[in-house]
């Protein structure tokens, strides 16, 4: 029996945290509304990677006990629903950005402070 490739769950946690942090830094540093929106998508995907990794970890632990287990299916369906909601969110968000551009002829978020007047 050849050696099984074992990847610690910590690696996936660190990857997901790094992607999430890069998304946060992008949201905080950029002024273009579309780039900020893309960084939000990046954060959503970081969470999705973590959910799939936990699903796989759960499945590996349950598979050692029962060979016919389907543990971990719910997490993958959850990721599927997150993708569905993200797709709906992107359509509405991009429509809002287009409307914004039509009104103030820019997507710079610093021009949005006139919302408070």
């Amino acid at each position, binding site marked *: 029996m050849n050696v099984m490739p*074992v*990847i610690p769950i910590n690696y996936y946690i660190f990857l997901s945290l*790094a*992607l999430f942090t890069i998304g946060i*830094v992008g949201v905080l540093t950029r002024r273009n509304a579309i780039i900020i929106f893309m960084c939000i998508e990046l954060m959503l995907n970081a969470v999705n990677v973590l959910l799939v990794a936990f699903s796989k970890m759960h*499945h*590996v632990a349950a598979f050692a006990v029962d060979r016919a287990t*389907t543990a971990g299916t719910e997490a993958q369906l959850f990721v599927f629903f997150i993708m569905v909601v993200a797709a709906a969110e*992107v359509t509405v968000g991009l429509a*809002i950005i287009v409307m914004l551009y039509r009104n103030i002829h820019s997507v710079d978020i610093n021009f949005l402070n006139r919302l408070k007047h």
Partner: protein
Amino acid sequence: MHINELLFWFLTALALFSAMMVVFSKNPVHSVLWLIVVFMAITGHYIIMNAQFLAIVNMIVYAGAIMVLFLFVIMFMNLNAESEPQKSKWMKFAAVLSGGSLMLILIAALKDNGGFISSMRGEGSIGLIKNLGKVLFTDYVVPFEISSILFLSAMVGAVVLGKKDSSTIVS
């Protein structure tokens, strides 16, 4: 070193580098293209975690549909200019500092666990369409139908937001 571990490190490096390039590239079109690379790397991660259905959906929905939508909007607004106004140096420094301290705290909170992911022979059926579809259309059929209503309302909302001002349209 097994092929899965090599792939893991390659895809991780690719994802992190591309995510950095998304944030730091000046041209928004380049940002979109780098984000597609990030999604491709994440699709690779799904494949080595045996989540084939999510890999395909991620590639079609994210890298295909959503990124094309972003690219379309950017080119529609003619935003591919290099002269974007930047935030001040201190704001950027504070942003990187706060993001880095958040990552530090989360790593310190989450690093102590002994879980692992391995790929044994004969497993991996949970990520296939057969299993996921069975569960989706039996246990989760109500959220599935609700998500279709969500899509319908999102479509109506996008059309209402995106069309011209209604006072200019002769009804």
